[in-house]
């Protein structure tokens, strides 16, 4: 019972962090049709910016400033890079973001080196929040969960209750019509890309000190984000939310359950399970849990 509860909490926490990371990607994909391979790199940039700003100004200003800075970089990338690549089709876009991911990693190597930076959880959020049987639940994890849920609420409200959200959703299905109505679609694209990368950066500021801030962190989290987006349904925020939670919980329980098939314990394959789910999903239901279109 104790293990089950602890695992559930761990799973939900991990799932919510995954959601923070993948919501930006979902947004970018649904709006622009760009599968952004560099998405996890913006997460990493967020973590490093968060580290730099929090050591100078403090953690809470970093929570706002770092995503803004990374979002500005993202917007610039869209304006001066992706927009040109866009003209030559999806393959160019894919290759562009793929190259961008490698460039960002190298830039991080050059500026911050290859070893982890000492990015720590702020003192005010450090320490246990409550005790569950014999183990404690850290305040910082609760904070991560709160931010993630708040982000979901804000995104949902923004997309369904505001005029800007209306334009974004309209552009998902009828980009030509939206343009014909006089909206500057390229500029909306730029803002969405900047916004999506800012969300990734926010996840980075929060995840960077919860785990470790080092140049390998983008490569480590990159693939899993795609799993979330594919399983949830390309372009569906609610789907991404459900998929994140499901993957977080499945992965956690795979570790804590002592179950083995042919002597191969489930915990040893735990990190591969999400990919298995993705493959199964692509075969059985290509549009994902709550996807709105087939491709």
């Amino acid at each position, binding site marked *: 019972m*104790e293990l089950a509860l602890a695992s559930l909490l761990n799973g939900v926490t991990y799932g919510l962090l995954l959601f923070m990371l993948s919501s930006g990607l979902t947004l970018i994909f649904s709006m622009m049709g760009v599968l952004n391979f560099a998405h996890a790199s913006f997460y990493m940039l967020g973590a490093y910016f968060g580290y730099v700003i929090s050591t100078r100004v403090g953690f809470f200003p970093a929570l706002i400033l770092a995503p803004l800075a990374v979002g500005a970089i993202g917007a610039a990338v869209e304006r001066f890079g992706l927009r040109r690549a866009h003209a030559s089709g999806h393959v160019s876009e894919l290759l562009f973001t793929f190259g961008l991911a490698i460039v960002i990693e190298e830039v991080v190597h050059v500026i911050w080196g290859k070893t*982890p930076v000492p990015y720590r959880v702020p003192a005010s959020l450090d320490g246990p929040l409550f005790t569950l049987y014999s*183990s404690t*639940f850290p305040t910082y994890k609760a904070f991560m969960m709160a931010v993630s849920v708040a982000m979901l609420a804000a995104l949902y409200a923004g997309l369904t209750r505001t005029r800007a959200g209306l334009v974004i959703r309209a552009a998902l299905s009828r980009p030509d019509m939206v343009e014909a109505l006089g909206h500057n679609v390229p500029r909306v694209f730029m803002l969405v890309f900047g916004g999506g990368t800012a969300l990734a950066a926010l996840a980075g500021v929060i995840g960077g000190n919860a*785990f470790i801030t*080092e140049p390998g962190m983008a490569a480590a989290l990159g693939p899993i984000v795609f799993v979330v987006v594919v399983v949830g349904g390309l372009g569906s925020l609610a789907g991404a939310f459900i998929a994140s939670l499901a993957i977080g919980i499945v992965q956690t329980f795979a570790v804590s359950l002592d179950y083995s098939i042919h002597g191969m314990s489930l915990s*040893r394959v735990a990190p591969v399970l999400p990919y298995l789910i993705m493959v199964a999903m692509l075969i059985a239901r290509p549009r994902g849990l709550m996807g709105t279109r087939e491709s």
Partner: protein
Amino acid sequence: MNRLAPAVLAFLVTTVTAFPAAAQVRIAYIDPLSGAMGATGEHGLNELQFAAELANAKGGVLGQKIEIVPMDNKLSAQESLILLKSAIDQGIRYISQGNGSSVAGALIDAINKHNERNPDQTVVFLNYAAVDPDFTNDKCSFWHFRFDANSDMKMEALTSHMQGDKGIRKVYLLNQDYSFGHQVAKAARAMLTAKRPDVQIVGEELHPLAKVKDFSPYVAKIQASGADSVITGNWGNDLALLVKAARDANLHVNFYTYYAGTVGVPQAMGEAGVDHVKVVSYWNANGTPPSMEPMIEAYKKKYGATSDPYSQALRSSVEFLVAAMKKANSTDPAKVAKAMEGMTLEGPFGPMTMRAEDHQLIQPLFIGTFVKAGGKLKRPAEGTTDFAFRLEQKLDGPATARPTTCKMRRS
């Protein structure tokens, strides 16, 4: 392209023909220099380059300088074999590698084959950290020399230390899912049951190498098992993240580790690891003889005040190489390998002997505890200013040696 071709060709010709004229002993360093374990590989490169500079400052060897050629294998055995091929093609005859016994095993096989087919172009493998015991037992090779204590030797030292601690009742084994992690788990189980039959092993877990971001599920499981001690061979981020997750969940256990002193780990452990993390290592930063001071100071000056030259095995490998070349009066790998067998050099903490029968270096080992720096502990742990390792026990070389099953085939 056609216009470029002659220029490219000319470049290749000049570089290829330039090699013999350079007259240098080149060592290819094949280790991860990027990716999740990039930091660990980078540290090794720094230490090896530094060791080469030390040797060159003393005049090099036989009138030649030692040069390190870094090659990034991304922790992949496949990639390493391609790099090995390219190193051999460049005329490099000495290979240095350490991170990942999976990689080392592939390199040993490939080098054995290469040397058999090309007896006039042999290659020697200087292994500074891949500690799978097989390499100096059933899989032993004349061309392979190990400068780190192997996993069984380290486990012997750790369990001997645990033997005296009656507070240990329940032990959990958490390791990486590849040859090395399997060996650690196997040795821990066998040696612990022999030395402390009263100790219960309450759990055994293997997790994928360098893939886990959040160790909380594993920590929850350890918590539920009621363990008071955890034995782990984890290295790099896999150890740092584990200790961090344990702190967050308020897991009160002692960690018995191989690699708590390596790059990134002391920093990640911080306050959480104090008094709870033990390490077995061939390096004791606060017990170095005064003769080592200039070396350590020079290292810190070059790589930062908080850096710790803990990879003694890399310095040992260069020192043995130089001594063997001088003894053989040749840089020919086959002659150098013969000369290195059974050779004894004075190390910083006592004599080090390259055992002839299996090419395993026999050297002193230390058990340390992660504590607050200060007082006599002047040298902080790698990457920190406030923490250090306190010496608990020193084992002299002969005490760490274990029998080998190696039947060496000498060419």
